[in-house]
């Protein structure tokens, strides 16, 4: 599967927030999008996933050459896209397992509940999640870190072809950052996923091996390259990129 974004422009209430983005991601590739607060990273992620209030004004989003702009969010997920949220919402009364069971079923796969439970348990152990967390309502009462781990767990269970993880490291302590990164790596390799990691910080990337680094500033990708860009960002910060944009 190839996800391709072509000259994407997005406006919110008349203000352009994504100003012409081009990006191409294939399965098995690891991409990183870095950028300052408000640079448009989350807007880009949500637009790719079809957030109802974010419609492209021009440009296109393609999966294997076919435009997905007219598809609903669930249909995009069924194609193999996944979004790990920056701020996962709490869903009152919906059991974590029940939710994952419903999501698997919606993907038109036959769900073996025992296998699903076993998968969830194994992933929860690998992610060092609190014992009773998966028996509780979806994200309700989870700490910020546990919510992020739960997103990664969902990614492992749903096995998308391309996953966008919006700040999977924010709110995590330093040990948890390592655990999350290792699990993302493992799922990525195991299921040959394309990964788009959105982050502000380089710490999580020190446990990963991104091949493509994109820097966003003011709604545009202002620099692209390999790991060397991360070092430059660490040294110079985002300021030089913002000025350049």
């Amino acid at each position: 599967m190839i996800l391709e974004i072509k000259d994407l422009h997005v406006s919110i209430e008349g203000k352009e927030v994504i100003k012409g983005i081009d990006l191409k991601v294939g399965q098995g590739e690891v991409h990183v999008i870095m950028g300052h607060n408000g640079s448009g990273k989350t807007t880009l992620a949500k637009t790719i996933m079809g957030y109802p209030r974010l419609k492209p004004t021009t440009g296109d989003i393609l999966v294997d050459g076919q435009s997905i702009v007219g598809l609903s969010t669930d249909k995009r997920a069924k194609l193999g896209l996944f979004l790990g949220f920056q701020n996962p919402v709490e869903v009152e009364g919906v059991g974590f397992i029940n939710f994952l069971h419903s999501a698997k079923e919606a993907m038109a796969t036959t769900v073996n509940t025992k296998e699903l439970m076993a998968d969830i348990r194994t992933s929860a152990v690998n992610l060092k999640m609190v014992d009773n967390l998966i028996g509780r309502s979806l994200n309700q009462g989870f700490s910020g870190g546990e919510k992020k781990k739960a997103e990664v767990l969902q990614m492992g269970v749903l096995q998308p072809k391309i996953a966008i993880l919006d700040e999977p490291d924010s709110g995590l302590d330093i040990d948890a950052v390592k655990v999350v990164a290792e699990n993302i790596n493992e799922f990525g390799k195991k299921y040959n996923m394309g990964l788009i990691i959105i982050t502000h910080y380089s710490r999580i990337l020190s446990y990963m091996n991104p091949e493509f680094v994109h820097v966003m500033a003011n709604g545009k990708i202002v620099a692209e390259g390999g790991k060397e860009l991360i070092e430059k960002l660490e040294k110079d910060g985002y300021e030089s990129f913002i000025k350049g944009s």
Partner: protein
Amino acid sequence: MNSYRLFAEDAIQKYKELPEEQNELYKRKYVSLSPEQLFEIFQDKKDSTESIEEIEALSKSIFVDSPVKFDAIIWGGGHIVNQAQKNIKIVPVSDISMEMLDRKLYKNSDDKLASLMHAFTKEIVILEVPEGQKIQINLLFVNASQPLATQVIVNAGKGAVVEVFEWYASSAGSNSASAVMHECIAEEYSNISIDAIHNEDHRTTVVGLSKYSAMTNATLKLNYLYNGGSHCRVKNYLSASGYEASMYVNELVFGSSTQKFDVSSYLENSSQATTAELHSKAVLADQSFCILKGFAKIPFGSKNARSFVYESGMLLNKDAYLESIPAMSIDENEVKATHSSATGPIDEELIFYLMSKGLPEQSAKKLIVEGFLSSSLGKFRNATAKLAGANLIAEKMEKGIFGAPVKLSAENIWVGKENEEDIFKGHYKYR
């Protein structure tokens, strides 16, 4: 003109004098019933056309593929009681004793609607549970070829434990009514729990009136799901009359099409160290309408009383209407009391989140609604009530159906647990 008609017409006249019926402002926060229409429904009643066998067959079809044994079936034309169940008596109004008549809580002066309903009541269901006894009773109420008007009296003796499961169904096929009044007294150290599910059809007007009293250290637990009926008007009065008595009311309303609900509960901590909790939740789809009124009263002298009123709602459609009105009247200082209310449309962030994981929009909404109602459904004590309630909610979400037989399947059913955390946690407190 016969005396029955005179009595009913007098009741109609008095009912129409109610401020709610007169005042335009009140009318907006009130589901008005037409007393004339109700009168006509009851007046036009013919002899029951159903045989006992037909009613028994109906009771077996209430739940798809899973017949549940009812201890008593009460319908407009009669009743069937399981003879093995010695605690239930059903007596004609004309046969009840003066003592029982005196104890009837609904007097014309108290409630005009009750007075109207009394005009139609033919039989009274009496459930007497002696001291220390434990019983579980399943009751089925049906408005069939005749509308139903009855009164249920539950007397739990000292230390008795009474669990009642009530199911309300219809098979009238025309405009009909189901009017059931309750009078329950939990004597000291006793425990009464009632799980009631209303699943009448779209041509039934539902009227419910209840008065409950809990004596010293007694507990009342009332769980209601209002899912059926075209119009539903319910009033509950509860009083924690004895020291350390507790009462917990858990109301769920799920409306669709043009259903109208007016559910009001009045809880009074009439004694010291008593507890009153009211949780009301409503989910409204299509053009349904609901008024939730919760009122808690703590009179002077009820020291160390605890009272909590919580109302919340979810609107699935811009044409649905919900108004929740939590209110409190507190005359005593040394109490804990709080109320809250929150209503809004279904959160689009939640829908997007679930859809991003592959759930179609309708499935996402269904999951959100089921989750919202899940913790309240988890408070139902009767396992059949929990399962049936969850399936009713699922059926209504998926197909908009109500008033029809329901599955008792546990497949894809997720019922939450009762939250045992302190209800005052996170809420504003009076201390």
